């Protein structure tokens, strides 16, 4: 196992975050604060949802929104940029297995997303008091989600051959799915038909499970949420494995 190689990629990617601190960390914190201010004001009419104050109810959804966006964008940019500038040749010519390459890039992307998620949690504390009922499950969801979506971002970064494509999936797919996945409301608040339709949205399971770890309330059984998250993780792992096995968009 080339541990020095994994560490080199990981440190390199983390150092990039340091160089772009405004974009990487401050930007999601500011936008989350704005969500609190705006939705807190709008939601002031909503007393509580299933016994939880609306602002506190928002927290898991907002953290999950940032986790998904950060995981996808960090991982996709992390692998796309060396492809774009040509430095990917060095990774290909190094004694690194595909698993080691993925561990380095995805590990760094997931770490950055978790750091941002934790900063948002800390920021939320300024606005509202909340508790975490099941910290272990919360950490489990945090890790599974960031790793799964970082793998997804990694696939996007390999697929993309221009910066526009890099942005398309996060903006056109991830954001709508997250907004419609119960970040700002409970699925139970929807009409019965839309309650059924929304179950096809994989993000519903992530947010529901994550919210359960905070407040013991869920739109979907937490076991199903964990299963769905693991399924997504396995799907992305299979995708990455196939890409490296075939060299798709990586090697001639």
């Amino acid at each position, binding site marked *: 196992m080339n541990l*020095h190689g994994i560490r080199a*990629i990981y440190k390199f990617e983390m150092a990039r975050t340091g160089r772009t601190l405004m974009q990487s960390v401050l930007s999601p914190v500011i936008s989350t604060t704005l969500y609190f201010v705006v939705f807190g004001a709008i939601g002031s009419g909503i007393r509580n949802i299933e016994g939880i104050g609306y602002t506190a109810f928002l927290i898991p959804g907002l953290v999950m929104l940032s986790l998904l966006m950060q995981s996808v964008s960090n991982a996709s940019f992390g692998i796309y940029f060396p492809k774009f500038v040509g*430095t990917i040749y060095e990774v290909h010519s190094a004694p690194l297995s595909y698993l080691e390459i993925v561990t380095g890039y995805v590990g760094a992307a997931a770490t950055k997303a978790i750091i941002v998620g934790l900063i948002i949690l800390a920021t939320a504390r300024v606005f509202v008091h909340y508790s975490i009922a099941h910290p272990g499950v919360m950490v489990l969801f945090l890790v599974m989600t960031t790793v799964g979506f970082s793998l997804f971002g990694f696939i996007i970064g390999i697929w993309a051959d221009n910066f526009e494509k890099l942005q398309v999936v996060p903006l056109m797919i991830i954001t709508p799915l997250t907004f419609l996945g119960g970040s700002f409301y409970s699925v139970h608040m929807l009409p019965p038909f839309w309650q059924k339709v929304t179950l096809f949205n994989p993000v519903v399971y992530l947010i529901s499970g994550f919210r359960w770890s905070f407040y013991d309330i869920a739109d979907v059984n937490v076991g199903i949420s964990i299963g769905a998250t693991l399924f997504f993780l396995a799907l992305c792992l299979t995708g990455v494995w196939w890409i490296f096995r075939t060299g798709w968009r990586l090697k001639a």
Partner: protein
Amino acid sequence: MNKAIHPVHAASDPVIEVRGLDKTYEGGFRALKGIDLTVRRGEIFALLGPNGAGKTTLISIICGIVNPGNGTVTVDGHDIVREWRKTRTIIGLVPQELKTDAFESVWNTVRFSRGLFGKAPDDAYLEQLLKDLSLWDKRDAKILMLSGGMKRRVMIAKALSHQPTVLFLDEPTAGVDVELRRDMWAMVRRLRESGVTIILTTHYIEEAEDMADRVGVINKGELIVVSEKNALMQKLGKKQLRLQLHEPIASLPEALNDYRLELNGKRDEIIYTYDTQSERTGITALLKDLSAAGIGFKDLSTRQDSLEQIFVDLVRESA
């Protein structure tokens, strides 16, 4: 440089062996056609060929950047497919294009490369390497801020950061000024002295002529010739004797037809092309016959074909 690189190896055994290597890209373009090549340990091997000949494809396959087709490649006895981790540890590559992390510092990018190739940090080695390449003063500079020549040195530093024993230099002096080019070739010589095997491609064939121990010419995916450079030049290089006449002549006497002489445009110089390999060059007889024909000359000179001319002839013949 010597402190930073390895001990000297014996200079005869093969370090790279390519057997029947084929490569056809997805679009159907056949870039390599059954290449057989042996590179000896400790030599400087120049791989020459026109654009699109297959040089970079061959190098990229050996380095693991491009998937191989049929055939086998071993590096230091290890198969590049089955024992890829071992072979990649041995190899360093300086690619043709300047591909660097523009926003990274010289020091960080070199440390990154060393780690990538599975080596534990060794700041003392990297410091010596950067000093050898006159990059130490620029270690904290962002690569973005460096000149083209300095960036090229950074590429070399990255390739040497993990102490490879086989170094590929793909057009290393392209776009580099004369002074830096000389520095780089001096560095290449020092690397060879320290035991590193060097495989280079270059468009500056006079450099291959000056530097290489052996030369391989590739064209349209086929290796046309592999030979000791000096033997190649002796075998394929024509030599010319030029005689500057006292006064121009209208035409050459028929008695001299057997020599296949040429007259220059001003008709005041006779050019005699002879074979350096034959037992007799015919020069003595020619001079005697010229005297007999009453043609006097005031000066003479000889000129041998450059490697470049040999290369051009070989490529033209194989086209």
